[in-house]
């Protein structure tokens, strides 16, 4: 154990962030592609082209989501417990949406029947759009605080309703999430397909991108003016044994802006969000989708970190019992567990990046209708 407990708590906040960003950049892109599938592909061959650009990678990409879930379970067990059980039906909705993807990708091309394939196309659309929307909605609710409390034995009780999750601000957050992933997916398609799909993808990046930028700006203004943040008012004891019931938390206006005031460098995150999305549109329109993809990846990173930095150290604030709020200091696992997992992450994340890159290099090409027709029985 080289790192002390306090450091590891921050490191794990960052690592969960990295895993979520990894998810958005890779699997989020696949979700964007799924969302666009029925609209950008006019014929069956064209849709197969779209699917086969992500065909070899979607499964590996999805593991970012699974690992992010596993890491939250292991590093922030109480967050995993309270959020997943509290957002019960929202989580099931995302899960049922995700169901459509593995079977959609693998089963669609197995039978050459128009209705069969059409049905799976809409399945892949649901599998892309619904989870993207739900994860954004979940973030939107975390920013507003969630009605829940912990009893003396740390059992979480959620007192809200499913429909309560679908409030206007959360829906806006859902829209941002869906928009940024769809933009990201469109640029990917521009990069990896040929005409006419690439042209169609290019044609939508501007609208989706601008709408997402506008929504992100609106959410920022809304957050700054209309949504009360949370603040820990009791003294912070470094390296303390985690106990989410001993602190004192208040809800107050502008609290979500305080980190940006205290650490002005964090303002780079919203800036990166705007600049990334903006440059991705520029890249796309100037036929430089490779740079566009880099820019949209940075844009996603900026947006996710903007929300994270606004809330830090809060992860899941409670509106009904603010003292029950889960924060990065007290919702965490033990020093040993964080340490073991830290080393696992340090060893394996670079390794994962290495072999994932290799698979992208080996499969890199523009997928064309001709190729799909030549490999009718091999391709997805």
């Amino acid at each position, binding site marked *: 154990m080289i790192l002390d407990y306090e450091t590891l708590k921050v490191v794990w906040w960052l690592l969960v962030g990295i895993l979520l960003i990894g998810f958005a950049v890779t699997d989020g892109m696949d979700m964007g592609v799924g969302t666009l599938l029925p609209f950008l592909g006019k014929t069956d061959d064209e849709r197969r082209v779209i699917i086969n650009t992500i065909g070899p990678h979607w499964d590996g990409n999805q593991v970012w989501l699974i*690992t992010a879930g596993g890491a939250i379970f292991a590093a922030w067990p109480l967050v995993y417990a309270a959020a997943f059980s509290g957002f019960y039906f929202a989580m099931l909705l995302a899960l*049922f949406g995700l169901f459509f993807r593995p079977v959609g990708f693998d089963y669609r091309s197995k039978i050459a029947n128009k209705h069969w394939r059409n049905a799976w196309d809409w399945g892949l659309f649901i599998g892309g759009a619904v989870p993207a929307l739900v994860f954004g909605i979940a973030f939107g609710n975390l920013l507003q605080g969630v009605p829940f409390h912990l009893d003396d034995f740390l059992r979480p009780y959620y007192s809200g309703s499913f429909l309560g999750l679908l409030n206007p601000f959360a829906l806006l957050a859902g829209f941002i999430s869906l928009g940024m992933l769809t933009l990201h997916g469109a640029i990917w398609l521009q990069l990896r397909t040929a005409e006419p799909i690439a042209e169609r993808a290019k044609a939508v990046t501007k609208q989706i991108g601008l709408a997402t930028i506008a929504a992100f700006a609106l959410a920022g203004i809304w957050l700054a003016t209309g949504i009360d943040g949370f603040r820990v008012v009791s003294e912070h004891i470094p390296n303390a044994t985690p106990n989410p019931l001993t602190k004192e938390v208040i809800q107050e206006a502008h609290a979500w802006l305080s980190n940006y005031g205290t650490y002005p460098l964090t303002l780079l995150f919203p800036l990166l969000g705007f600049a990334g999305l903006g440059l991705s549109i520029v890249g796309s329109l100037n036929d430089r989708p490779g740079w566009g993809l880099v820019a949209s990846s940075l844009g996603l990173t900026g947006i996710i970190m903007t929300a994270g930095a606004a809330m830090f150290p809060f992860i899941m604030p409670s509106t009904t019992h603010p003292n029950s709020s889960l924060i990065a200091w007290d919702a965490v*696992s033990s020093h040993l567990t964080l340490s073991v997992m830290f080393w696992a992450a340090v060893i394996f994340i670079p390794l994962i990046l290495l072999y994932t890159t290799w698979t992208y290099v080996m499969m890199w090409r523009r997928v064309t209708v001709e190729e799909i027709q030549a490999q009718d029985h091999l391709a997805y």
Partner: protein
Amino acid sequence: MLDSSMIELSRWQFASTALYHFLFVPLTLGLSWILVIMESVYVMTGREIYRDMVKFWGKLFGINFALGVTTGLTMEFQFGTNWAYYSHYVGDVFGAPLAIEGLMAFFLESTFIGLFFLGWERLSKRQHLGVTFLMAFGSNLSALWILIANGWMQNPVGAEFSFETMRMEMTSFAELVTNPVAQVKFVHTVAAGYVTASMFVLGISAWYMLKGRDLAFAKRSFSVAVGFGMASILSVILLGDESGYEVGDIQRVKLAAIEAEWETEPAPAAFTVYGNPNNDDRETHDAIKIPWLLGLIATRSLDTEVKGLKDLMAEHEVRIRNGMIAYEYLELLRGGADTPENRTAFEKHKADLGYGLLLKTYVENPAQASEEQIQLAVKDSIPEVAPIFWAFRVMVGAGVWMLLLLVLGFYFNAKRVIQQQRWLLWLFLFSIPMPWIAVETGWFVAEFGRQPWAIGEVLPTSIAASSLTANDLIISISGFLIFYTTLFMIEMFLMVKFARLGPSSLHTGRYHHEQSGHAGGMTPATAPQKPVE
């Protein structure tokens, strides 16, 4: 106290979605290695038929794998959605192997599986074999970490309860990983997966032989699978799970339940072949026993006794009473009376805290339980015996049946006369469900046999669930029912369709349905072949 019908429904949902997930996992574990063997032969000999074998069995592998991934997602979500208190109480220990599984194994398997299917044209022969190997290695490594997590539920080593954080905390990662229960479970489970895949390939290959089609393809597939299956079933049986039954109270209870052994018998204990175990009478009616056999199977010795359920329950009663004291001090400590005396008293009894929590089903504060409630908790401290007793016998029966088939198949295949043993080929075809019966009943024995515990001796299932309502569960179960039934029908439809099509589904022009006008007799795959690309 949580709503008991909600807990029942949560258990139903978890058990049925886990059993469903486990329909697809064993085939993935085994078939991936069979693909590695076939592809190795292809790379070494350059014979196209082996590549076709990899591609065809790979197609069926893919149909199965897609549902494995789909239903695996449910498993990850469900700990949080439905077992929130479990997630809090043991996430510090249980979450780690799951997260490491993702980082170390699942990434590996999933990243390379895409190239396995779609990389044929873009990778060299050796690169593709490497990809297939990494996919198989990843999926088996994944099973290792999952079973480390599961082994910890059965025998929670390397962890300790902390009253300050109100949860179990890891004290030794090494102990968690080297948990003897996890080790034997891993060997037993993956080997069972290998048998499953072998029986699958054998049954379908047997059908091709019976139909007299694609004989060269079918015979080679049969040969690979029968050798692999023979080695695997011997591992399942010889390195069976029993050696893990000596460790920890939960495993001892499970063993006694499997044998419906109420009284501790003098060593070596008899094996009950038939009987009607009854939890209320604490007796097994109409039992037929074979002397000595259980002692030999369970303890591998003639002088170690297998403890009976009544004696185990007597031990549990002592521990429940201890647990009540532990709970009393826990309340004091959590309530702020954190004195050295209270800490010492709690530490002294805390190993039995879990037993005290068993009383939560009957009373809000276990420290104030009545004598009657204690007796009810004692009765709850062992699982319902009859289902375990029977599930175990079904599993062993299916295992022995497969052993016989594999021995015969291996023998006739070695003598190169397997095609003439039509009766045996029919038996192989109709035995395709056998491995699934064995693995599902095996899962049931392991997990139902763990009851009343979510984490053995630590956390009762009855308090592990989320704070949901029965209504929430009815809605979610209905959702799963609709999705899983539909997906199952689609999967079976595709599986049967492609199994019937056989290697003709590859559209190479070399196989049965692509030849004009003849069925049996000819072996199209050995006919002049197109050059390798």
